[in-house]
């Protein structure tokens, strides 16, 4: 492609260039898209692309059939994913050796390869076309749809799909005030956690005078959450476009993308995106001849979870230690370099081009009255279809987990779902019909957070789970506030006591009391929400805590100190498999005679339990 394209100086020039790109894109109608995002790359999708290229060359098809990497296609569980366009045939769990067959059968002969198409794990039904999959059917993929066809490193792809049209519209047809008004009317709420009205924030910043900044918060640190990463890796130009529009609306002339160094691919992609946009004149001075200009810088964080908190983020951008400070003054009054600063989450910014393009009215049609638009959740844990799902706000948890997620793995029973990352709460089955919007989730003691959704089945122990999240937060707390640093580690101590069988009912009461104090007395969002996992598990699963304390048993069989392994003599055929695999040599017995576990020596690792073919091991 033409790398030395001249800078675009007006809206007419932009649409001329867009038509060119669209023509090129249409000429490449037949192409094969391979998911090039984290999950699929880890399963060797690079080799798949290599194999495809070789194959196309051998068959002399390189000219007529395109091959490209795209962003995350969503169904990470079944990666690597390959989609054959224009029919949109989806193949899953593809290996490099499958590519010659795909080229021969599907591209040349037009036949679908039965063994590579997706089968629904619960119903067993087969789906050949991507759009027909139940996983995709219920979703409204506004933000993620760009991932399907565009190569994230190519601005041409993005522009051909209608990208940067919103920027052109905003900069050439609208005043900053009108852009703010549009976003306000769309009721766009921050997708990073707090759910603050993005339009209000912009308005306040727009009214301030002097040097201003807009910062894109790409410091996504929740365990199990990867929507910002996928947006940045799969469609970085959408985020960039949102950032530029935001800068135009708030009259900020400098933008910063704050991104964690643990996301090297995302850093690379956004860097490429900024450079390509600069080359076309979409970033820089005098964009599209409007007189408005913006410089965008990258700031790479060292990966502290607390740096996702906006005031800590600003300290980090500034080169100081990432510690939150007291608000007020709020950041729109006094932020980076003591100047008015707007900090928006990646997903919030990615929503902006859609609002400008389709108008606030149309945007508001999706979602609920108070929470409009769509939200990306990273659906992980014990569900059949783990991956990224984008749904209208207000969809019930049941629809997300059971219809899109395909239900619980191995037919087990649903136990709880943790929304909002480590600071969110665990909701039991009785709340499955709860709509997922900001208010409903907060009301029942959880939160929207950035959109992590961890599904748990009957084999999860809630005490152990609360301990896991507390441990994460104890490590990630900045340690400034005494109640956060010491409070979380004491909460952890109490929870660990309970899971070790050393707990008492008094300790359970103390746990509740301390959790409330930590929630109440800490400075920033991290500490204020840190007790949520404890409080919500106690609220909905107090019985489980009581069983741990009073009966010294772990009902889910997770807490090692409270479980024992035993061999049922009548079931054991003496195959010796458990004895062979036991790492602590705790199993004795002669061949073909019942074996025996020495409980003092047993480490309770559970290997015997999972290796026994006769179900002779009893876990209690």
């Amino acid at each position, binding site marked *: 492609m033409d790398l030395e394209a001249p800078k675009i100086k007006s809206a007419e020039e932009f649409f001329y260039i867009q038509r060119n790109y669209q023509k090129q894109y249409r000429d490449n109608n037949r192409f094969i898209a391979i998911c090039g995002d984290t999950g699929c790359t880890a399963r060797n999708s690079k080799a798949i692309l290599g194999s495809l290229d070789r194959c196309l060359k051998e068959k002399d098809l390189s000219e007529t059939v395109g091959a490209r990497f795209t962003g995350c296609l969503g169904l990470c569980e079944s990666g690597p994913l390959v989609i054959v366009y224009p029919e949109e045939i989806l193949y899953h769990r593809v290996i490099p050796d499958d590519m010659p067959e795909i080229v021969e059968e599907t591209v040349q002969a037009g036949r679908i390869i039965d063994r590579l198409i997706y089968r629904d794990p619960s119903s067993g039904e087969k789906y050949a076309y991507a759009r027909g999959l139940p996983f995709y059917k219920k979703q409204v993929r506004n933000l993620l749809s760009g991932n399907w066809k565009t190569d994230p490193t190519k601005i041409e792809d993005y522009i051909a799909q209608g990208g940067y049209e919103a920027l052109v519209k905003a900069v050439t047809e609208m005043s900053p005030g009108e852009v703010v008004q549009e976003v306000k009317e769309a009721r766009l709420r921050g997708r990073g956690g707090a759910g603050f009205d993005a339009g209000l924030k912009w308005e306040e910043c727009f009214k301030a005078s002097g040097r201003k900044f807009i910062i894109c918060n790409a410091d996504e640190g929740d365990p199990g959450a990867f929507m910002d990463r996928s947006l940045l890796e799969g469609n970085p130009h959408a985020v960039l476009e949102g950032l530029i529009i935001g800068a135009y609306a708030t009259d900020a002339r400098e933008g910063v993308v704050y991104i964690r160094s643990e996301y090297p691919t995302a850093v690379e992609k956004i860097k490429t995106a900024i450079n390509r946009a600069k080359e076309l004149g979409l970033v820089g001075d005098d964009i599209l001849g409007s007189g408005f200009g913006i410089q965008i810088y990258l700031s790479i964080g060292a990966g*502290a979870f*607390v740096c996702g908190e906006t005031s800590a983020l600003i300290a980090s951008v500034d080169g100081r*230690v990432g510690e939150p*400070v*007291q608000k*007020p*003054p709020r950041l729109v009054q006094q932020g980076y370099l003591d100047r008015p600063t707007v900090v928006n989450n990646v997903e919030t910014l990615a929503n902006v081009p859609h609002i400008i393009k389709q108008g606030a009215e149309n945007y508001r049609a999706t979602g609920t009255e108070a929470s409009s638009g769509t939200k990306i959740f990273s659906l992980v844990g014990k569900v059949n279809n783990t991956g990224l799902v984008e749904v209208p706000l207000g969809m019930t948890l049941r629809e997300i987990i059971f219809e899109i997620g395909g239900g619980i793995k191995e037919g087990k029973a649903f136990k709880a779902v943790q929304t909002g990352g480590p600071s969110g709460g665990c909701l039991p089955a009785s709340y499955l019909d709860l709509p997922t919007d900001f208010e409903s989730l907060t009301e029942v003691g959880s939160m929207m957070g950035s959109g992590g959704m961890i599904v748990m089945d009957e084999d999860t122990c809630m005490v152990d789970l609360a301990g896991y999240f507390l441990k994460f937060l*104890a*490590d*990630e*707390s*900045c*340690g*400034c*506030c*005494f*109640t956060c*640093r*010491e*409070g979380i*580690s*004491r909460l952890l*101590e109490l929870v660990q006591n309970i899971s070790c069988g050393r707990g008492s009912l*008094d*300790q359970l009461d*103390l746990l509740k*009391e*301390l959790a409330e*104090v930590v929630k*109440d*007395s*800490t*400075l920033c969002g991290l500490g204020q929400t840190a007790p949520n996992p404890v409080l919500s598990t106690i609220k909905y699963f107090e019985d489980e805590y009581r069983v741990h304390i009073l009966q010294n048993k772990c009902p889910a069989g997770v807490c090692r100190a409270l479980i024992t392994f035993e061999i049922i003599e009548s079931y054991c055929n003496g195959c010796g498999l458990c004895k062979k695999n036991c790492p602590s040599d705790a199993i004795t017995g002669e061949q073909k005679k019942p074996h025996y576990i020495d409980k003092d020596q047993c480490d309770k690792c559970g290997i015997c339990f999972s290796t026994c073919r006769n179900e002779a091991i009893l876990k209690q």
Partner: protein
Amino acid sequence: MINLTMDGLKINVEPGATLLDVARFYGANIPTLCYDEALSPYGACRLCLVEIGEPGKSRLVSSCTYPAREKLNVRTNTVRVMQTRKMIIELYLATCPSSKTIQDLASKYGVTGVRFSPKNEECILCGLCVRMCEEQMQAKAIGFVDRGVNRRISTAFDRKSEQCRLCGACMYICPVCQVRCQGPSG
């Protein structure tokens, strides 16, 4: 001038004052461990919590860092403030049981027992010494290292500091360990 209500009292204060300044000026009794008039406020000890906002929608903030704002309703001695403060003192007592300052605080607020396992720490990481060293002594010889539960105070790279003049101001200002703390030895 800023108009606000504190414990039912209507008060006028200069802009720039913190809630702790106001409270202390009007005689409200608010304990602190990380605050010193000569140093910038830090908000780490959380003892100076006050309740702000209307009942029902109120929240607790550290008064040493919260600026006085127009029409703010501040209450310094509600049940919520007192209960939270007592729990925080209990946590302090469990962390540093041998500190005289903390023992005195506990007796003053009626904390008679500790339900957590005692830790015998020597430092509560209030950061007074760090700020003293930086702001008053202009030395920046010590600072915080690491984060979360591993946070501690030390010199750069745990080596003997070239900036340290062994002035002892850090030991002088320390509210807790005083005797046992040996200053920034390398």
